[in-house]
């Protein structure tokens, strides 16, 4: 059983957050990759809430990422390039879509959920593909022009603003998620994960809780998508792709589900690995990806965080 964590920030957590700040000064030439990692981490965090805490298997989480990306991208393209309010609007649109579809999700079991999420993702992909006059279709949405962040910092080619902006947003959202999972609501989610049938017996409405967490997860995914659109000033149709949903799941499982930090560690490990291996040969990358998944499932179900936790509990009990 997992121990209830203390609400205060531990030394390990503070050290963890110093890493991205140190990276900003140590690797000024890798800030673009750094922003990608931070955005992927935020996206993985949103899946951790619904998969790691509520155990909803989703193969179409990119739907909300894509909605956020297109919302922010379209706003900026049509003259509303203020980043922060664009982010908020993207979150609202994605969360609304999440809320609407959550009623379809809570009804079914694993297979149905998997198919419905997959179907919704594919439907949005098709819609974005067909509505090419609005979305740019397969060529992607270009001409996204962002205003300066807070009226002060422009999104330059050096990627400094993009990196710090992504980091700040990630930190704020992470804090909120951290509070959320330790609240009574978060505990009841864990209860649902461990025994869905028993939760009604202690007076918890499983359905309402799942709807709530799915909506929150969708909103955060929308923020991640909007960040990507704003920092790269482009939206490709692959934001809705199945590959993105699948890779997201891999990141989360690689890092470990149900810890929040696992999402960030997994995203970083995945993106760095991808950057290294995909440069060698894109075809091999898919082979490695598949191999990694098979190995994870067969031998390392807890992911990196699971390994760390096991290691720590072994060291703690000599």
């Amino acid at each position: 059983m997992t121990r209830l964590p203390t609400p205060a920030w531990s030394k390990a957590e503070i050290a963890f957050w110093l890493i991205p700040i140190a990276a900003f000064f140590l690797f000024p030439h890798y800030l673009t990759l750094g922003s990608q990692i931070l955005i992927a981490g935020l996206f993985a965090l949103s899946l951790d809430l619904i998969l790691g805490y509520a155990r909803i298997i989703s193969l179409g989480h990119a739907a909300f990422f894509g909605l956020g990306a297109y919302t922010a991208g379209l706003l900026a393209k049509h003259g509303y390039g203020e980043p922060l309010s664009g982010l908020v609007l993207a979150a609202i649109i994605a969360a609304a879509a999440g809320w609407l579809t959550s009623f379809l999700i809570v009804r079914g079991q694993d297979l149905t959920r998997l198919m419905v999420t997959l179907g919704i993702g594919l439907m949005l992909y098709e819609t974005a593909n067909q509505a090419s006059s609005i979305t740019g279709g397969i060529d992607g949405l270009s001409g996204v022009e962002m205003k300066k962040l807070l009226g002060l910092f422009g999104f330059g080619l050096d990627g400094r603003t993009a990196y710090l902006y992504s980091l700040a947003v990630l930190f704020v959202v992470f804090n909120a998620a951290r509070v959320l999972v330790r609240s009574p609501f978060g505990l009841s989610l864990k209860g649902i994960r461990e025994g869905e049938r028993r939760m009604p017996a202690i007076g918890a409405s499983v359905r309402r809780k799942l709807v709530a967490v799915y909506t929150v997860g969708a909103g955060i995914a929308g923020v991640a998508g909007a960040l990507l659109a704003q920092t790269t000033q482009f939206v490709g149709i692959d934001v809705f792709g199945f590959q993105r949903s699948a890779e997201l799941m891999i990141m989360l499982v690689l890092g470990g589900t149900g810890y929040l930090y696992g999402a960030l560690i997994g995203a970083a490990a995945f993106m760095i690995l991808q950057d290294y291996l995909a440069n060698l040969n894109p075809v091999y990358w898919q082979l490695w990806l598949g191999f990694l998944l098979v190995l994870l499932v067969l031998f390392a179900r807890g992911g990196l965080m699971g390994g760390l936790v096991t290691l720590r509990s072994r060291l703690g009990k000599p």
Partner: protein
Amino acid sequence: MSTITSFIGVLFDGLAYGSLLFLISIGLSVTMGLMNFINLAHGAFAMLGGYATVMVMSRLGVPFLPALVVAFMVSGAAGALLERILYRRLYRAAHLDQVLFTIGLTFMSIAAATYFFGPGQQPVVLPASLTGQVHAFGLDFGTYRLFLIAMVVLVTIALVYLVERTRFGAQVRASVDNQQASVGLGINVERVFSVTFALGSALAGLGGALGINVLGLDPTFPLKYMVYFLLVVAVGGAGTIRGPMIAALLLGVFDVSGKYYVPQIGAFVIYAAMVAMLLLFPAGLAGRRT
């Protein structure tokens, strides 16, 4: 061409397409029904059958019909092997693990197919007797589609006989309905599952080989049609023959007529229909498990 004849043409194409989907998905239906195992890599066995056919035809000069037998056997052998060394470990695992594991296998199969056969579409040369048109009732029917439907009808009759009339079929049905009781009655459920998994993979391979002309064959095949196979099983209900058959034929007709009459909406219709069907019939049209 009048509206009626074009409608019959679309219906016919849809049925041919649907029967192909049925042939490929029936193995998946049994896997899900029997072991409650979500296998997203099922399409990889169909792809393997397709490539086996293309290879023995182009490299060894084997004619089309014997090449179909080769596809059946190669995919069946691959299914038996993978079941024994990999799938078996995950029968009792959580659905999430099964999903991740089989997505991993799918990615690996795509990379392997790209490596060995290149990213392009594979051609297949059909014998002259299977090309062209057949005239009947004042209408033209593609010979190959007729052949395809006939093949699937034959395979289905054989399957129904196997499941309904033989001792092995009775064991399969018993295992789907209640595994524990079946074990108690002395049925070797593990062996039943190995054999059905291999048979399902073999049928998928046959379907993949027959479908090169209809579905196409390139390395992204397992991912491209994954939704369709899953859809057949989820809508049809796992663990039966009749349910997936109805679902596959409906899906085939809907998809072909959707692409013919409203091409601008594309695949949207199918995905919307899928979500609606899943909500209306959570256990499938004719699920054995409720």
